[in-house]
């Protein structure tokens, strides 16, 4: 016969998780209060000051040693690097000015090209007109030549002093 009143095993996993979550929450709250407090800020500032003072002393000592050996320090090289950067900026300034000038130049060149194209088109038109006129002149010249030829047939010709008159028919 099964017993419905048999004692159940305690859920150790759930209990452990509950304890864990409560501990973590407590720890987080403590950490948050500590970080936001003035004492933490002051303590951090004091330890930072101490470290920086010590570190600065070490750097200055190393720099003095290098100067004594007449060797360039990292600071010297950093200043040179900054000067190189400044020179590069001047080059970029010049490049940008050139770009602007180029843009203006290209725009004005395009206007000039359009003007020249219009003039060339006008010249071609005039050339066509001249060709037409020339053709007309040549035609007229040919007609004039033909007329003169006809006139020459009806006038007396001079043959070494003998004037021969042709009888008019």
């Amino acid at each position: 016969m099964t017993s419905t009143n048999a004692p159940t095993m305690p859920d150790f996993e759930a209990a452990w998780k509950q304890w864990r979550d409560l501990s973590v929450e407590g720890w987080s709250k403590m950490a948050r209060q500590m970080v936001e407090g003035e004492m933490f800020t002051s303590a951090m500032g004091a330890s930072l000051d101490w470290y920086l003072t010590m570190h600065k002393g070490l750097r200055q000592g190393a720099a003095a040693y290098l100067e004594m050996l007449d060797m360039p320090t990292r600071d010297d090289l950093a200043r040179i690097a900054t000067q190189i950067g400044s020179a590069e900026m001047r080059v970029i300034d010049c490049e940008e000015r050139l770009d602007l000038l180029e843009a203006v130049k290209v725009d004005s060149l395009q206007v000039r090209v359009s003007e020249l194209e219009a003039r060339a088109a006008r010249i071609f038109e005039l050339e066509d007109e001249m060709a037409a006129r020339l053709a007309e002149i040549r035609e007229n010249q040919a007609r004039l030549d033909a007329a003169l030829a006809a006139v020459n047939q009806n006038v007396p010709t001079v043959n070494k002093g003998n004037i021969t008159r042709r009888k008019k028919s």
Partner: protein
Amino acid sequence: MKTPIEEATRTYKWLGLMSGQSRVPIAQTARTLVYSRDRIQLFKYVRETPATKPVPVLMIYSLINRPTILDLLPERSVVQQFLAAGHEVYLLDWGVPDGLDRYAGLDIYLNLHVRTAVRKTCQDAGSEKVTLFGYCMGGTMAAMYAALHPRRIHSMILLGAPFSFRSEQLLYRWGGNPATLDPDKIVDACGNAPTWAFEGFTMLKLDQKAPRAVALYDNLHRPEYVRSHLAMEQWIGENIPMAGAVYSEFIKGCFQGNRLMDSTMYIAGRRVDLSAVKCPVLLVMGEADHLVPPETTSPAAEVFPQATAIRFKSGHIGLSVSSAAHRKLWPDVLAWLALQQPQIGLIVARDTPGSVRRSCLCRGPLS
């Protein structure tokens, strides 16, 4: 209920993952190198199909971490979103600064590096203008650049970018107080701002460290969760140093002086006036962003002449990597960008002096 052996195995696996030895491949989208100058590199992401949008996108990230967050995993990649929308995508990778960058300030970063990157992007893409995409400090720098050199900027998308550095959030209480943070002391002692100078960001969410570890333990049976967790931890561990001059200039000018909003910030003698940015600007803010809370971004919407603002329920990093952002936020961002594309007219690119190359014929007003 798990057996003791199963629990032990699980704990062993969890400890292995927590040790930081396991790595997953991140930033896997193929890209080619367009230009490099020392450590600065300009990459172009490889497209499988021809671009359908004429204006290329140039991504500018923060100087604090690596830009791999923009392409963390294939299903959580901002780069892939832009590629899928038909854009040519370029990334300006700052590299890892060293001692030679000690005196590189905002003048060098903006007027040399960003300006060169914009020119090279225009040349390579055959476009007169670019769309600038800036994330976090990269967004602030992108806006500064556009204020100084507006000619080649078609539009801007600024994601979690601070402009007004006044907030009750812990980061601004720490960074905005010269008594708490003196950048000149750090730079004086170390040259560049070292990697540990940015551990403060981790401290801001110290209370989340333990819950994240517990969540990893509870989700060990989900491979995609584990992969995502590892990818994030890898990126978080990739903090890089910052060039000394730009660190000092940014902390003193922006965090402590808050000079950007009242236009009293000067770079190489030129005033940075955000109201001179005439192009369309999209400001994207995370409502739960503890690093760049909305109150540090929204004032810029009043200053930029053509600004649109989107608020999304997300934290700072979630804007770029959360699955919700990739489902809901990025389609809206890309739709906004599609509306800004030129519709009618001819885009003419001059890639070398004296030459004119017609890149595409499309419809829309030219600006």
